[in-house]
């Protein structure tokens, strides 16, 4: 431990801590705009400067490690003056159009000015940047960028994808793709982790709000909306609730107030995904154990950022991906077929809107594969942040609306489905069902506490043995399978490299593109600190525990759907509506050219 003094207070912190970390640990808040806890690499904003006795210059507290006997002052005249000056210099290269900026009131730069007591902007001059790049999922308005480089850290160190890096030098420096190519033409996965950490209005989801208002205003359209579990655990934050407050019933009521005609639960389709994926997995196991060549491990397919990552980075391994569409596109396909039949509505007169914690799902719905009978399965994806904005625009306050319930026929869901909102959830949900399908016995839920790997913090794994299987599943007798869960694309890459080297010990792999899963998706409320994420996680676990039933195959709505419409898992109709295929892309999209 290192002993030092901060603001005349003696503190003791672990060796290797930075001054900023030491201060934070002792509840002394040093302002900063570029820090990212745990992965901080670039001290670029310099607002965290402090005085260190004996040092001639002020020090950036995020980059300087503590030393024994150090005497630090975070709040002196000199420090305050310099911080204000630095802030004003930032403003000199920033469009000060806050009144019409989407980030207004949630902008870290704006808040910083207030915090530092800045009341004037003395410097004027040229502004740099100016690239506007709009893709189906993410939009970049680089004139607003303050070059904090958090997005670079998210893209390179957390996700290890590396789409974004600093380009050019000096005044011309921009954060961008290689040679400023449009983000839609490079190997961006659209995970949105860059968006999630952007302190200003530079990186954002591509707006779908106007399209959705258009559908709602269209008298001929029946507008169906569905909500993802991770959204429910987070949207309260946009309305002043404590993180992790479950507001599902209020959210459903609010969506009706906004003008949606029907509100469905994406979790219904999560249960359906479990049935389809379990059946697909057991078929693969059967073929493989029978000596036939079958791509194993099977890999989950719910996370569209992960899918695009495989298509770009491991195009030869697409066969490992489960062919299941993601739950919301399954539900979209069913809304425009099964539900349309019940209602006797022409599918073309329906619009399906998905409320997701995700930016990648905006791209996903634009895939040509996500259509049936020439109609898109889902017509628009709104992020958690976007639906909050729509509610505000419509004057709907989540705290003041009543409560409501999901609509039939897609209203029921299991506890297992709730878990889709977090890393490990799809695996746990699937194994609960697979184990019971094979053995006829319930899987003790505490058996599935996967442990993180030493080699990669983003990966966990666990073993599961199948004893005394039922007649139809004799091929699984005495088989022990090893399964892995990764969240974050760096961990995904670790597992994929094992597969490439033919060293993968796993039969089933779940990957979520974002670290921690959908609770920290690119479309969730900002900023998402580790405490906030923990509370969202707890909220989802709680939802699972309090559900009347906790296994996907117990969902009576799903059973009815098979009986009346789909007939059997992986059957012909299910294949048509609920399954998909993937596209070889390559790191430079080289496979896309014919």
């Amino acid at each position: 431990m290192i002993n030092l003094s901060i603001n005349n207070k003696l503190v003791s912190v672990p060796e290797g801590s930075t001054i900023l970390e030491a201060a934070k640990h002792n509840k002394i808040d040093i302002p900063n705009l570029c820090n990212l806890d745990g992965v901080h690499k670039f001290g670029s904003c310099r607002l965290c400067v402090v005085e260190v006795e004996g040092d001639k210059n002020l020090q950036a507290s995020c980059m300087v490690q503590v030393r024994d006997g150090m005497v630090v002052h975070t709040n002196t005249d000199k420090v305050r003056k310099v911080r204000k000056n630095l802030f004003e210099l930032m403003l000199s290269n920033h469009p000060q159009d806050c009144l019409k900026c989407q980030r207004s009131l949630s902008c870290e730069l704006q808040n910083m000015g207030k915090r530092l007591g800045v009341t004037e902007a003395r410097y004027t001059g040229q502004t740099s940047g100016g690239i506007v790049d709009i893709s189906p999922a993410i939009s970049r308005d680089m004139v607003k960028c303050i070059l904090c480089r958090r997005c670079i850290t998210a893209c390179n160190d957390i996700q290890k994808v590396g789409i974004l890096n600093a380009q050019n030098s000096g005044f011309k420096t921009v954060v961008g793709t290689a040679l400023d190519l449009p983000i839609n033409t490079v190997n961006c996965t659209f995970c949105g982790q860059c968006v999630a950490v952007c302190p200003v209005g530079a990186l954002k989801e591509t707006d779908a709000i106007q399209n959705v208002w258009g559908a709602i205003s269209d008298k001929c359209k029946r507008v169906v909306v569905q909500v993802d579990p991770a959204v429910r655990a987070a949207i309260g934050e946009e309305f002043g609730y404590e993180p992790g407050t479950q507001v599902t019933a209020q959210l459903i009521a609010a969506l009706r107030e906004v003008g949606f005609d029907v509100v469905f639960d994406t979790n219904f389709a999560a249960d359906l995904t479990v049935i389809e994926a379990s059946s697909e997995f057991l078929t693969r196991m059967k073929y493989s154990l029978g000596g036939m060549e079958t791509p194993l491990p099977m890999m989950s397919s719910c996370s569209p950022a992960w899918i695009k990552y495989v298509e770009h980075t491991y195009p030869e391994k697409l066969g490992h991906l489960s062919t299941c569409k993601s739950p919301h596109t399954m539900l979209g396909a069913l809304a425009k077929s099964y539900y349309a039949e019940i209602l006797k509505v022409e599918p073309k007169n329906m619009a399906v809107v998905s409320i997701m914690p995700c930016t990648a799902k905006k791209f996903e719905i634009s895939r040509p594969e996500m259509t049936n009978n020439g109609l898109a399965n889902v017509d628009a994806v709104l992020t958690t942040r976007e639906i909050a904005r729509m509610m505000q625009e419509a004057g709907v306050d989540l705290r003041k609306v009543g409560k409501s319930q999901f609509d039939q026929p897609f209203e029921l869901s299991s506890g297992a489905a709730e878990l889709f909102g977090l890393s490990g959830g799809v695996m746990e949900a699937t194994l609960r069902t697979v184990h019971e399908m094979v053995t006829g016995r319930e899987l003790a839920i505490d058996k599935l506490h996967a442990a993180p790997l030493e080699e990669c913090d983003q990966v966990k794994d666990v073993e599961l043995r199948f004893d005394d299987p039922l007649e139809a599943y004799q091929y699984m007798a005495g088989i022990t399978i090893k399964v892995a869960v990764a969240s974050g694309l760096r961990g995904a890459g670790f597992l994929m490299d094992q597969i490439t080297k033919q060293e993968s010990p796993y039969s089933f792999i779940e990957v979520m593109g974002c670290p921690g899963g959908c609770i920290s998706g690119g479309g969730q409320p900002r900023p998402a600190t580790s405490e906030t994420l923990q509370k969202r996680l707890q909220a989802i676990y709680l939802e699972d525990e309090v559900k009347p039933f906790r296994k996907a195959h117990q969902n009576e709505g799903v059973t009815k759907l098979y009986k009346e419409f789909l007939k059997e898992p992986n059957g012909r109709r299910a294949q048509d509506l609920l399954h998909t295929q993937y596209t070889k892309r390559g790191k430079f999209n080289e496979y896309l050219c014919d």
Partner: protein
Amino acid sequence: MNCETTKSQCCCGEETDQQKYDKIAEIIDQYKNREGSLIQVLHVAQTVYGYLPMELLKFIAKRMDIPLSEVSGVSTFYPVFSMQPRGKHTIKVCMGTACYVRGGKKLVDRLENLLGIQVGETSEDRKYNLEVVRCLGACGLAPAMMIDETIYKQVKPDKLNSILAKY
């Protein structure tokens, strides 16, 4: 999206593209996995290939197993790297204080006119690059300029034609 693979374009005894790429690959394999080796690789690649076109940057990124945005980031950070084809000769006009005062700017204007290009560009016949430098350390010779390794002193705009004629 440009999907051209590296084609061999043999012309009059020069190395083919394939040979150049092979040479660059060899260097990459030597430097790969060494911290901070990208700059060296880019130097060699530019020397071998003449400049750093997008396809070559992709080749380097793939072979070094690093993101293309990083390769492009480093290439665009240092003015020494060029993403455009380079001319056979590089003209550097000094715009340091002394040279500027004594007419460096007029030299630049005239050269831009004569070559039909702006500073930082390459003439259409790929004979010249035009660059501006801050000080050649030859203030006594102002206004000075360099073509490749040769220094020209007290250059007057009207002398430029005859100087260029030597190349």
